[in-house]
């Protein structure tokens, strides 16, 4: 009885902190569900950064110039670093890196389904930087104010580093859009294929989103999926116009009274189908991750052997 009321009091104080915009730090008391929710969201975010290296990595050896190759290498390197920041933030919640990686490889944990789409042309590298990173930045800017301190600080660092990702993508699109007819066509085709999946990155409509309401109450999320998606749709319209490309959404139209663009409906059937493993590259992405992980086995073995040798040396020679 006393235990229950203590628990209720702790939860009340916790919610009060959240309501007062006071950050939660790793050693604070927190409800189990808050912890689990955060581990799920942050690790999903981390997995997305890591798996997201594959579609772009596909073009490093085929970038059209040395300049583009250097930029792309830099960008992919950033994504690896962002994965690390986010794994570390998850680990402050008491889960190990090993458990997180196992959850990814077994399919228990998800990553952004956009990365299950293949990169078929150089234009796709431009579209990913512009649209996929653009959508991710919308989300991440909002998450700089998330209630969990280590996550918020990670987001601030990531947003700062990521500021060039979207611009380099748009620059690629601009070069193609101002190039030959064939290049323009490549840009249009990449825009057509990546626009809708980019909108899906914000997740289901608010009413359908499994974790949204509680996440908003806990300020893990600061803006709803639909509000963030609308922001992205609005900012993208003039960018498409400037490229002189056709908007992939035939229903896009300015709504004066809302002060936003109205838009066509997203193909949610496709969204759930890709999430549930039936995108073009789901199996390939995980198999690649598992293979790379296995191929790194000898490095982990060597580290462990070295550590053991050092330990034995320290025992023999205490100085």
């Amino acid at each position, binding site marked *: 009885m006393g235990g229950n009321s203590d628990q209720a009091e702790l939860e009340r104080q916790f919610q009060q902190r959240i309501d007062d915009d006071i950050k939660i730090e790793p050693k604070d008391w927190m409800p189990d569900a808050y912890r689990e929710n955060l581990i799920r969201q942050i690790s999903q975010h981390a997995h997305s950064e890591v798996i997201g290296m594959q579609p772009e990595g596909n073009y490093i050896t085929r970038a059209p110039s040395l300049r583009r190759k250097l930029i792309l290498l830099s960008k992919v390197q950033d994504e690896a670093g962002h994965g690390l920041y986010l794994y570390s933030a998850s680990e402050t919640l008491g889960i190990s890196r090993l458990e997180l990686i196992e959850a990814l490889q077994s399919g228990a944990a998800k990553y952004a389904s956009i990365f299950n789409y293949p990169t078929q042309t150089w234009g796709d590298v431009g579209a990913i930087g512009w649209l996929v990173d653009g959508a991710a930045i919308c989300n991440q800017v909002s998450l700089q104010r998330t209630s969990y301190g280590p996550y918020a*600080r990670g987001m601030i660092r990531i947003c700062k580093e990521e500021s*060039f990702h979207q611009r380099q993508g748009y620059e690629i699109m601009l070069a193609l859009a101002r190039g030959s007819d064939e290049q323009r066509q490549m840009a249009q085709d990449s825009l057509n294929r990546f626009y809708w999946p980019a909108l899906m990155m914000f997740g289901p409509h608010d009413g359908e989103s499994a974790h949204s309401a509680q996440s908003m109450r806990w300020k893990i999320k600061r803006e709803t999926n639909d509000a963030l998606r609308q922001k992205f749709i609005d900012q993208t319209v003039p960018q498409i116009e400037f490229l002189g490309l056709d908007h992939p959404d035939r229903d896009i139209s300015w709504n004066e009274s809302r002060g936003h663009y109205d838009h066509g409906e997203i193909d949610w059937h496709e969204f759930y189908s890709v999430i549930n493993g039936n995108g073009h590259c789901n199996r390939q992405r995980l198999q690649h991750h598992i293979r790379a992980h296995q191929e790194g086995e000898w490095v982990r073995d060597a580290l462990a052997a070295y550590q053991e040798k050092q330990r034995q040396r320290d025992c023999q020679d205490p100085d």
Partner: protein
Amino acid sequence: MTRETLELFEVFVRPRRGLDHKHVGSLHAQDHAQALEYARDCYTRRGEGVSIWVVRSTDICASQEEDVESFIDPSEDKPYRLATYYRLPDPVDNM
């Protein structure tokens, strides 16, 4: 005469919730618990922070500043890592 043989600890203070801990100085103490109390008394007398970390100085592994050029590549030859490197026309520059 007994000489003081206490260990050196480095002190980090979090000024406000939500911010990173910042290094503020060092002190001598017997163990972690004592270091925390001394740090409180020494470094947070004027509301400097809400949380303190203490770390044994010998546990800190530091790079040397004179090695900066070979160890920490300043990446001056990689300006493309910065957003300002990408010149976009005015109408779409807000990105």
